[in-house]
């Protein structure tokens, strides 16, 4: 079975845009709009990667990153924050909280997918295969 890519994003339009671009590139997408549910989903399916927003209802991005990092099952899963750069220090803070990477909004449709792929182990494709 093809491993899904989990997106935790509360903004429907942003979610749709990311999902559209990633699906176009052959990724299977699982999505949730709530931080707490996102962590549960991640544990239940062990996704290919996790994209998450910082501003989230229920559990914000920092808490999500910290929660995901506590589970060694997810140790090898890239956790990538996707958020607007509001304040200097956001990037450092989210990386410190446990995120593997950081992508700034607004996303550039032309480079978005390739930026995600940078966080995959070398040789992976959209299906998570070598």
């Amino acid at each position, binding site marked *: 079975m093809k491993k899904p890519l989990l997106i935790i994003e509360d903004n429907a339009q942003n979610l749709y845009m990311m999902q559209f*671009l990633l699906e176009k590139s052959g990724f299977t997408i699982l999505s949730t709009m709530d931080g707490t549910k996102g962590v549960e989903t991640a544990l239940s399916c062990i996704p290919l990667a996790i994209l998450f927003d910082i501003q989230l209802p229920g559990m914000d991005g920092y808490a999500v990153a910290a929660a995901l990092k506590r589970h060694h099952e997810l140790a090898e899963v890239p956790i990538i924050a996707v958020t607007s750069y509001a304040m200097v220090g956001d990037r450092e803070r989210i990386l410190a909280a446990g995120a593997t990477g950081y992508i700034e909004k*607004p996303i550039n*449709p032309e480079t978005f997918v390739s930026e995600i792929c940078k966080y995959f182990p070398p040789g992976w494709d959209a299906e998570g295969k070598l």
Partner: protein
Amino acid sequence: MHFSVLHLPFKHFFLNTFLCLFFCTGTASAIAQPLIVRVGLYENPPKIFTEDGQPAGIFVDLLNDISRREGWKLQYISGSWAQNLDRLERGEIDLIPDMAYSAKRAQIYTFPKVPALSSWFQVYAPRGHHIHSILDLNHKRIMVLERSIQDTAFERLRKGFELQCELVRVDDYKSMFSRVQRGEADVAVTNRFYGMMNGRKYGLEDTAVVFEPSDLYYAAAKNDPKHLLPTIDRYLSEMKAEPNSLYYQSVLHWTSQKVAFRWPLWLKIGGGVGAGILLFSLLGGAILKYQVNLRTRELRQINQEMEERIRERTAELATITREQVSIFESAGVGIIMLRDRVIVRCNQKTMEMTGYKYDELIGMSTRMWYGSQKAYEKACDQVYGQLARGETHRRSQQVTRKDGTVFWARLSLRAFDENKPKDGAVAILEDISEERRAAETLRRAMEKAQEADRTKSSFLATMSHELRTPLNSIIGFTGILVQGLAGPLNEEQSKQLQMVQKSSRHLLSLINDVLDISKIEAGQLELSHESFDLNPTLTHVLSLVTPLAEEKGLTLEFQVKPQLGSICADKRRFEQILINLLNNAIKFTEQGSVILACQAKENEICLSIRDTGIGMEKKELKEVFQPFHQVESGLARKHEGSGLGLAICQRLAAQMGGVITVASTLGQGSTFTLTLPRETTIDQSQEVHA
């Protein structure tokens, strides 16, 4: 000792004049060449002696009279009797008055024919003696004048009567009498003249022992070389013949004056003392009265001056007092005089402030300034300790008025004399209600402003997210469409969607600028600090703006050496500054070129962006870094922009410890230069104000 012609007593004047007329004939020649006559002078009063430093006595009177009439110049040479005898023998003097004749002396000296006086020797003894005949002198201690006739005569007498007595020889009569008086000898042998004159003075009286009558002469040196004796003989003869002559007067004078009745000593002393006291007291009284009058006048004058000065000083003091009272009463603060923590005086303002009347305040304790008795007592040590050090005690507190209302007051307390602070202190009471209200208002305004600032920051953070989220959506989907990911587009659709995309990106940059400047001005912009290579960074920046330059047909030159080294700064903000400056340069240049040059120094780098654009006027250069500034020329208006770009760049550069300068010529182009230290100091506290 030499004496010149001596004066005669005044009372002899008339007689002398008479004698002068009488003998005038024989004297005329002598006056022309005065004959100097040296006369031996010794002490044998009243015949010859020294009185008040002048020769005196019977022999002197007579000789003076003779010499005056003869025109002699007398020189008295004093010495003892024995010395005089020697001098006369050697011819050093011409005459010795009062010498008794003896055969032996006649061989050495020359005697005149006429004796001057006749005398005898007599024994004198202290009063109450029991000497009635010469036999009574047996076993007595007897004083005689050395080498005198009486000495030899008494010796002869003593031998004749076989007396066992001790002879004491002395130099002069005076010491002889005083020594007998002191009891050093029993009796003194003297001549009758000396005894008559001086016996009583020494408490001695004459005895019945009288012997050796003798004639006394003016003896001259051997053979009388100056022929004085005949002249003396002549005068003496004449004077002796005349009962009222100077001869008798002199004898009477010198023998009676000294033996005249004498007041008893105690009476004399008493009388003298009494008279002295009387005289002294009269004199003293007069002097005292004079001095009192003088002093009284002085005092009166001083008194007048003092009164005048007191009047002036009183007037001055009255003026000063009036001035001080005016200041005191018109002061805008309460002034209170205290003694031992009790009000003794206060001004009008104190009454107005406290609502108490003057009489109510006077005598009131400062207890009213304290909330409790305990606080009042506690303050005593602290406050008065400060006053005793000469300091001013200051505090702010609430004071209760008479009607019970309360106001805030500032109290300043100081002692008049720091050594005795309780004896007197002044308290200044200021109503600071208004001040405190103003401070309170200010504090609230500050709080409000801070609250507003927090709200603003919060608003900005929210806006940052809320504005960008939909914009992200617009830009993203437009991009998807333009790329044809959602399906193929015709040419017109593609063109219009690209316009949407461009406008969206511009809107995003405007929003970012507003957020940046807001954060900078609120001091909330934080910078990161990382080391990065300059060359690849500059290449990257240039690649970002190259499409714009190419679009306008401008040459973009890159005059940068290959090894610029690294810089430690906020990389993204560094890029932001350069992109902004390059975009501006391209934006305001219609033709020509934009050149990026870099000068790398050891501690700093200088990046300059030179364009061949529209340039600026001088006055505009000052304002170019102000927020919301836009070039106002007609040409410029067609350029879009928030007017914040340069303001942000300048502030970012400053926050990194650098600066942006500009040089420009209108119509020819501008050069913006960014200077940054290689090791940027991050001054987070720095606030850049517009």
